[in-house]
């Protein structure tokens, strides 16, 4: 094994500087727009009109941030988004693990048909159902409230598919049978055997779900009002005024994005592992 690795390393030695250079350039273009948005957000609007535009952060960031909180209901929006993304994440993790366990390891009538149905709907554009969903929200009198954003997202087909895939690989069937022989009910087996094994995958699913819910824009825009928005809706209002105020819009962007970037910097490895794992099996 070590000789193979050494061999591979030597083989690629010649191509290396160029590879690194290319990857560095790509990394630069990936990160630069985010960096530049912080730069813009830390200047005042007149600085942007200078002919070489500023490329280093200025000293106006906190002034712009406080302008953001004055202009839009951003505090409320942040609170709403934490509530929305938090409850969706917990629910998706729990219900996906439950259903994933049943699909991966339990035998019941209609299992395959239901699983196929679930996977097939992953391929259907969500916008196909958006009009009736909106009508449903009117019927339930949930428009303008967080229920309209939270409840339809409490479960999703991807989560079930993800946990089914993971558990059918990671959970040994013998463990369940051993639990059965010991007289444990399926419910007890779920809590004692399945959950501990499911935890890493559920955590990855949780992170992906939280990011998706935090970043969701279109549906919240449709069902919510400007007075009671989520972060993304508030941000879009902030940025789409009649007067283009880029420092204001990008300061709002920073508030909405930097928490996720910070979390991602810490846990990015696991998130990437989850995406790559799901991809191969998908």
């Amino acid at each position, binding site marked *: 094994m070590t000789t193979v690795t050494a061999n591979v390393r030597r083989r690629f030695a010649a191509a290396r500087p160029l590879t690194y250079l290319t990857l560095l350039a790509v990394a630069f273009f990936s*990160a630069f727009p985010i960096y530049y948005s912080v730069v813009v957000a830390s200047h005042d609007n007149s600085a942007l009109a200078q002919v070489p535009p500023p490329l280093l952060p200025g000293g106006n960031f906190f002034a712009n941030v406080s302008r953001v909180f004055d202009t839009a209901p951003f505090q409320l929006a942040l609170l709403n988004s934490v509530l929305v993304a938090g409850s969706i994440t917990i629910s998706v993790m729990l219900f996906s693990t439950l259903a994933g366990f049943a699909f991966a390891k339990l035998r*019941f009538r209609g299992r395959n048909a239901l699983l196929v149905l679930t996977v097939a709907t992953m391929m259907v*554009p969500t916008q196909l159902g958006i009009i009736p969903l909106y009508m*449903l929200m009117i019927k339930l009198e949930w428009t303008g409230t967080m229920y309209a954003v939270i409840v*339809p997202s409490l479960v999703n087909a991807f989560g079930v598919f993800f946990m089914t895939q993971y558990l059918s690989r990671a959970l040994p069937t013998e463990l369940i049978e051993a639990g059965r022989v010991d007289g444990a009910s399926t419910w007890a087996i779920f809590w004692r055997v399945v959950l501990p094994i499911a935890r890493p995958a559920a955590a990855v699913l949780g992170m992906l779900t939280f990011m998706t819910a935090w970043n969701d824009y*279109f549906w919240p825009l*449709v069902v919510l009002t400007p007075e009671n928005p989520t972060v993304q809706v508030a941000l879009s209002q902030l940025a789409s005024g009649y007067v*283009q105020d880029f420092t204001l819009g990008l300061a709002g962007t920073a508030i909405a994005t930097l928490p996720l970037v910070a979390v991602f910097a810490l846990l990015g490895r696991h998130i990437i592992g989850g995406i790559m794992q799901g991809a191969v099996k998908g």
Partner: protein
Amino acid sequence: MSAPPQAEARPKAAAPPRPSPPRPSLRHRFDVKYSPYFYISPFFLLFFAFGLFPLAYTAWVSLYDWNLLSAEQTFVGLDNFATLLGDEYFWNAAFNTLSIGVLSAVPQLLFALWLAHLLNRPLRAQTVFRVTLLLPNITSVVAVVVIFSQLFGREFGLINTVLEAFGLGRIDWQAGTATSHAAIATMIMWRWTGYNALIYLAAMQAVPRDLYEAARIDGASTFRQLRSITIPMIRPTIIFTVIVSTIGSMQIIAEPMLFGAQVSAGAMATGGPDRQFQTLALYLYEQGFRSFEFGYASAAAWVMFLLVVLVVAVNFLIVRRMRGGLDS
């Protein structure tokens, strides 16, 4: 596996009957046979109510003249579909969707493939590269459009500043069809290239190493290895990403919506003053949530869905055909 602390939460009742192993008691049989439905029921109840039911109900609504603001709904059969197919705004939106979709997806996937190829070798700081590549993907659509609208800004945008420095003229990116499509495609590419690269990378890592060893002994260049080994070996993943990107491209809405809002808040639903970048999904939004023509918008949703199926099928066939070319 040690018992987790949550274990005492509920299943006390299950513990007592320890002895007598072969004991198909009624409760046990009931548990094995029916409890699975209990585990999938929270998912399916919510999924039916808020996922599947709306999908099916769209078909029903599309047959009515159904407006939120009027009390009466009249059955009109396929009239909505007939009107839609004669609506030039609809076809304009279909063209824009296709154009932006091709402009963003094709270069994006090719580039992602190449990036994955570069990453699929022993590298220092592999994790740093991966994290950086995925950074755009965790940025929200709204943030992406706000950031790029600044970069593509006519007056103070960085891109125009650079163009001018090279002696080229400033471009009013939002004004033209081609330029606005290019700008929107750039945003989509920026957000999704790294994600697709990681998916390709995952598939590439499953390709047996000795295939490359053999190719190297035969003196194949790395590009040749990519073409003759990697791409044929990860073809299922390529098909998967092509399908997912196609479905994604057909649903593009937030980018043109917010890009239009940068011109004027009123251009939000029309995709620019001349509808030069109104996509199908945005057209659906305009009909459904600006005019509140639910019946008409539902018909548009169905036609859109059929177009998605059509385009996915065509792409699937193209990618499958590619196999022959790549093997040779």
